[in-house]
């Protein structure tokens, strides 16, 4: 949330000035951490359901790789992890005041993130053609719900990243104010972490 014409030369990357000490970070960062708490609970509901249903009714599942394409999804997982690396690089760049580096690494993150979504969509189409649909049973129900909502969150993340990238091109971020970059970075890492968990329990077990 950058703004022109700050009347005082205070540091927006610090907590609000003149207030009782709180979390020790600026509002937007605290807000994102708190918001991610709700996201943890959301995925807990979905993943918890999956665990309960699978433990109670294991025969409804097929062995890993029998239905799902593990190799291509493994590559996709690697890509998503790479996009977290590019995000870290973008963050490091703007911290140093390297604005061209920021723009470059943000674009990389957007591209890799979009590729991840694209591959997921391609995989869905392939699975549906094969007859593996949400209504096929517990396996399909849980697979599509968990990965679908993860994909939805990644898509929202990509849209926000595009917005942040556009603002970066407008020169809105600097070494003195890179809040937007840090905050979307936090969200992006979270989405990546959820995927690592999902990939493990859905594709590998």
């Amino acid at each position, binding site marked *: 949330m950058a703004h022109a014409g700050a009347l005082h030369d205070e540091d927006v990357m610090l907590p609000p000035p003149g*207030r*009782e000490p709180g979390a020790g970070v600026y509002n937007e960062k605290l807000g994102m951490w708190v918001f991610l*708490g709700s996201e943890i609970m959301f995925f807990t*509901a979905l993943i918890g359901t999956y665990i309960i*249903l699978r433990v109670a009714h294991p025969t409804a599942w097929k062995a890993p790789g029998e239905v799902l394409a593990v190799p291509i999804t493994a590559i996709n997982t690697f890509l998503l992890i790479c996009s977290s690396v590019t995000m870290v690089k973008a963050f490091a760049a703007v911290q140093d005041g390297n604005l061209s580096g920021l723009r470059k690494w943000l674009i990389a993150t957007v591209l890799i993130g979009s590729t991840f979504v694209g591959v997921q969509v391609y995989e869905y189409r392939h699975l549906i053609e094969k007859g593996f649909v949400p209504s096929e049973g517990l396996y399909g129900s849980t697979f599509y719900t968990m990965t679908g909502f993860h994909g939805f969150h990644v898509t929202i993340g990509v849209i926000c990243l595009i917005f942040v990238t556009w603002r970066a091109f407008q020169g809105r971020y600097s070494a003195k104010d890179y809040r937007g970059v840090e905050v979307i970075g936090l969200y992006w890492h979270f989405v990546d972490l959820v995927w690592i968990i999902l990939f493990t329990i859905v594709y590998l077990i």
Partner: protein
Amino acid sequence: MATTIGHVEEVTLGGAEVHADTRSFVRKYIFSTDHKIIGIQFLIMSLIFLLLGGVLAMVIRWQLGFPKQPMPMGGVLPETMAPGGVVLPEFYNSLVTMHGTFMVFFAIMPLLVGVFGNYLIPLKIGAPDMAFPRINMASFWIAVPAGFLMLAGFFVEGGHAAAGWTSYAPLSERADLSGVSMGQILWCISLIVLGLSSILGSFNYITTIINMRAPGMWWFRLPLSIWSLFVTAILVLLAMPILSGAIIMLLFDQTIGTHFFGPAQGGQPLLWQHLFWFFGHPEVYILILPAMGMASDIIANGARKPIFGYTSMVLAILGIGVLGWGVWGHHMFMSGMNPTLGTQFMISTMLIAVPSAIKVFNWLGTMWMGNIRFHVPMLHAMAFVSMFTIGGLSGIFMAATPVDIYIHYTYFIVAHLHYVLFGGSLFAIFAAVTFWYPKMFGRMMSPFWGRVHFFLTFIFYNLVFFPMHNLGLHGHMRRIYDPTQYDFLKPVQPINELISISAFLLFATQLIFAVNFIVSWFKGAKAPENPWEDNGLEWTVPSPPPHGNFVTVPQVYRAPYEYSSPFVTEDFLPQNRELPEAAPSAAPHS
């Protein structure tokens, strides 16, 4: 920090927080980012839904009191609901569902969290607004379509959702079992949208309270209303997503053929119950904690005395917030889950009675040795203590698993939930609306009509809900369209009639409150800055406060309830009033 909100430039850091307001009418009152306006927007929306929920209750009570009789004015209802004014069984099931849904999600929760969370938090902690004013605006404007979606269900084929506000599967997911298809789907979508609104609000409140307290507003100087709203916001943040997840799965079962809760392909009906109540129990603490917090503020004010045991009151709020996550199975004792689990939930439920009991004792302790002013908010707050006690005590019967075998799903439960939600939450809401009305609107509500409303409400309320305990003990089940189908219920049918007549009178009495509210807005006595001689920071600014709230950042010197302090002649001492060096700010902690 300079933030641009609309056309108003705000500056903190010891400078002015309030500047000339050049916003347009739309930016000031419709798409406003001002927490006070958003709070009032939630107030209007919630009061409308409270009224609607009450209307639905009147139709329920008509059918229960006078089964299968044509209702007065029933002719306005369509044939699908009440041909000839006689309520149909399917419509009855929708009525009980929507009464609960409207009251829980669109009335009580937004009244406590959306209205008073928004209105009070920045003012009482000494902040110019919430941490994220635009997200705050979004939170309200997302709740509005959720409301419309929930209303729409009455107009679709098959009628509105009819599986109870608890929406148990498989009834809620199979149109062939419930007779309802689109209505259940709209119910689900509406609550998903509302959940987003709530979650956006919650992280805003949490960030604001953590990071934006004025200098000197230490954690243990926060008023209990703010402590309770803080813990409530954490509960909303963590519990609403569980509901969203569960409802998404229900929606998928309803629409794309997934198998989460239907046993045909290995799904589990009990899974819905576990998910729903894992959300649902923290939800009921969401519905009571802010009421408790505001009641504390008002009781200390009315008694002109510090809250008895402030630290324990804070610990009790935290205790309820934490323990509330471990009791959800007490809604499921008869569900068929393993009885050993039942014993575990019984234990955790017994324990959670303790912090609530502590609060009741401390409210009494606050009144003890006080100098009690019986202003209208105090009347409602004392009724809150009295009625909440009844609700809490009745809870012990159902926590004892063997007794719950008998009273589960009877009117004993209905009595309990209404004593805590109406006797508790709603009386606290009446207290809070009356108390903060002058700050919100710059006018006082009529004290005379406030008293009339209070006394009549108190009497009729108890006539409606107290006998429900006895109905339940007689074995009267919940959610039944026609009790006279059962021989054993015929002898208690006169009690149903008494309850229904009292309910009609109770509803009619609320018109007094509605008229008082509306008329006072235009014709009420102009309110001074601090009509209740209260210590809170909101009473140190004009009524209503300007955009940005405080001309200079307040400096807080003391705890929130320093009434009858020996260090000043008045019997109140605002948190930000500076005293000469020689006078200490508060007594040493006893």
